[in-house]
């Protein structure tokens, strides 16, 4: 099956087999999309039952510290007196219900979450892109110079950062470069996304945001690039034993050409998937880093929800994070099929 490179090379046309006009590529894509939807459905169902095993009085958890009318409490009680499957059905009819309210913020959860999305996307997006570029570059160089000094230094350093809790590294950067321990002048802000009073929609505002994001983005970049560089190195070393590289060298190609044109594109395949698969962990990093640097994103909102505890908010954040990661995985799988036609068969 690995020999089949192009869908057109399949001996029997897909039409004759399935009776319908669907190519193997499309069928693969549809399968992947269906699989992702099933996973998301599982998350929603799981979400319902997970929060139903909460100890204590659910009503007081939902209404604690809020001015709730007696009628509303009776309404909630009536809902909870229904049999569990009844509750399940009404939950499944509208899992993203607009009526679910955050305990702490006293407004619908999705209104609380909305404005928090952008800071997180900015932070995580920038860090992921930087970590990918630098990590892949480092991985290629150390694999190509395997066993030499560059490789040894890089591998040791990346392994140390890979073993580090990201929030701890962030706190150390914060204490050194913002507070200014060890006589270093505190150059960077201690937290937040921008200086109060600065309009972030002007060029000066962008600079201000960039200045605020420097330390958190650096933290996440360094921690993530460690893993990407280790993966890229291993994958390129695997590839370097292959015969086609020997052929390329025997043809007299420059070392640089062999690396860039022949080895790296193939070694990129597993790395690409792993980078996307890793987005689940990236989300986790954002939670603690936003807490440490007080960035008003989804991560610090999650920490607020834990400390409440603000169960409705936590529930919605869980669904949102899972949905985002499932989507990223779907994109990774579709991209992978585009890059490597073998997986479609």
């Amino acid at each position, binding site marked *: 099956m690995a020999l089949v490179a192009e869908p057109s090379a399949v001996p029997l046309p897909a039409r004759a087999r399935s009776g319908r006009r669907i190519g193997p590529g499309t069928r693969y894509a549809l399968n992947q999309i269906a*699989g992702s939807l*099933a*996973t998301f459905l*599982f*998350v929603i169902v*799981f979400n319902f039952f*997970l*929060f139903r*095993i*909460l*100890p204590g009085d659910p009503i007081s958890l939902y209404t604690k510290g809020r001015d709730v009318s007696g009628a509303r409490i009776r309404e909630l009680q009536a809902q909870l007196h229904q049999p569990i499957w009844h509750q399940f059905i009404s939950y499944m009819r509208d899992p993203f219900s607009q009526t679910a309210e955050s305990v702490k913020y006293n407004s619908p959860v999705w209104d609380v979450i909305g404005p928090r999305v952008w800071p997180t996307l900015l932070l995580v997006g920038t860090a992921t892109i930087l970590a990918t570029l630098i990590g892949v570059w480092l991985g290629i160089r150390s694999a190509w110079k*395997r066993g030499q000094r560059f490789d040894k230094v890089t591998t040791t350093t990346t*392994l*140390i950062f*890979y*073993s*580090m*809790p990201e*929030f*701890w590294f962030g*706190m*150390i950067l*914060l*204490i*050194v470069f913002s*507070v*200014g*321990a*060890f006589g270093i002048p505190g150059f960077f802000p*201690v937290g937040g996304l921008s200086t109060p009073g600065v309009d972030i929609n002007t060029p000066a505002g962008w600079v201000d945001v960039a200045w605020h994001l420097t330390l958190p983005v650096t933290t996440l970049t360094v921690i993530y690039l460690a893993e990407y560089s280790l993966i890229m*190195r*291993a994958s390129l*070393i*695997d590839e370097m*034993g292959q015969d086609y590289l020997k052929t390329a060298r025997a043809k007299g190609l420059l070392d640089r050409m062999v690396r860039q044109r022949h080895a790296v594109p193939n070694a990129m395949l597993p790395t690409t998937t792993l980078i996307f698969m890793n*987005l*689940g*962990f990236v*989300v*986790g990093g954002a*939670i*603690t880093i936003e*807490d*440490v640097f007080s960035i008003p994103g989804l991560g610090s909102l*999650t*920490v607020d929800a*834990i*400390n409440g*505890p603000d*169960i409705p908010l*936590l*529930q919605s*954040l*869980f669904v949102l*994070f*899972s949905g*985002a*990661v*499932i989507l990223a*995985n779907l994109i990774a799988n579709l991209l992978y099929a585009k890059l490597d036609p073998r997986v479609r068969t």
Partner: protein
Amino acid sequence: MTATTPEARPRSARAVTWTRRRRSWARTAKAFGRSRSGMLGLGIFIVFALLALLAPLLFPASELDVTKATGPIFGPPSLTYWLGTDDSGRSVLALVVWGARISLLVGLCATVLSMVIGTSMGIAAGHYRGFRGGALDRLTDWFLVIPYLPLAIVMASVLGRSLLNIIIVIGVTSWPGTARLIRAQTLTVEGRPYLERAKALGAGNLHQMGKHVLPNVMPLVLANTTLAVSISILSETTLSFLGLGDPDAVSWGSILNSAFSAGAISQGAWWYLAAPGVCVVLVVLGFNLIGRALEDILDPYGDGA
């Protein structure tokens, strides 16, 4: 069972199997002894394990009591307090040594739980065909895709804050990677002729999985275990830092949590933050080194990059 014994040497099949296994363990141990980074990792682990075991002898438990603390508030490292003091005047060194107990305990227990779930799910998913295997496979996929930390956070919030719960949370959320790996290995073992022989002789599913597949995936489980310990310890640190750990237990993560909320950063009390963090990095690095060395040794392709 696995070897036919000649009449001249009346050794039971079991004894033959165990001799073979002992030899293979000795070979692995010898190869491990040659790996410098692996031995370094093992050394780090032994040092911290000793510290954890000897904690009550080194520092009396009363040193952890806030009301009995005698040191200065946020005192920098000095001759009396080698690693400085915290916001209530306790010795950071004592906190870190006591923290090693909880961090290692949670890390090891959670790993055992995760390995048991991951290995049994992986073997079962690889062994059973058709609907049952497919369903287990799908379940693994689902847990693999759900982002790890948000899942751990909601589970920890729902279950409540205690030592046992944090072990359960980490164990239950970190098994799918292992299951994937073990399933792949199980599939290659299942294709070998001796399993067909066992089936032909009427071996049941449990016998096939327990007596034939499990011993063959065990080396992989072992290498994966050390890597899983580092993930468990990092998870414990993160969850405790977020305030989801046992409120009465001192772990490295909970020290970092109290340092952060007591304002160690704005006070410039770097020693309060540095000590527990360095411990986490060292122990996690140690387990990563052991795991990588074992992977190299047990790598079926032998190349071992």
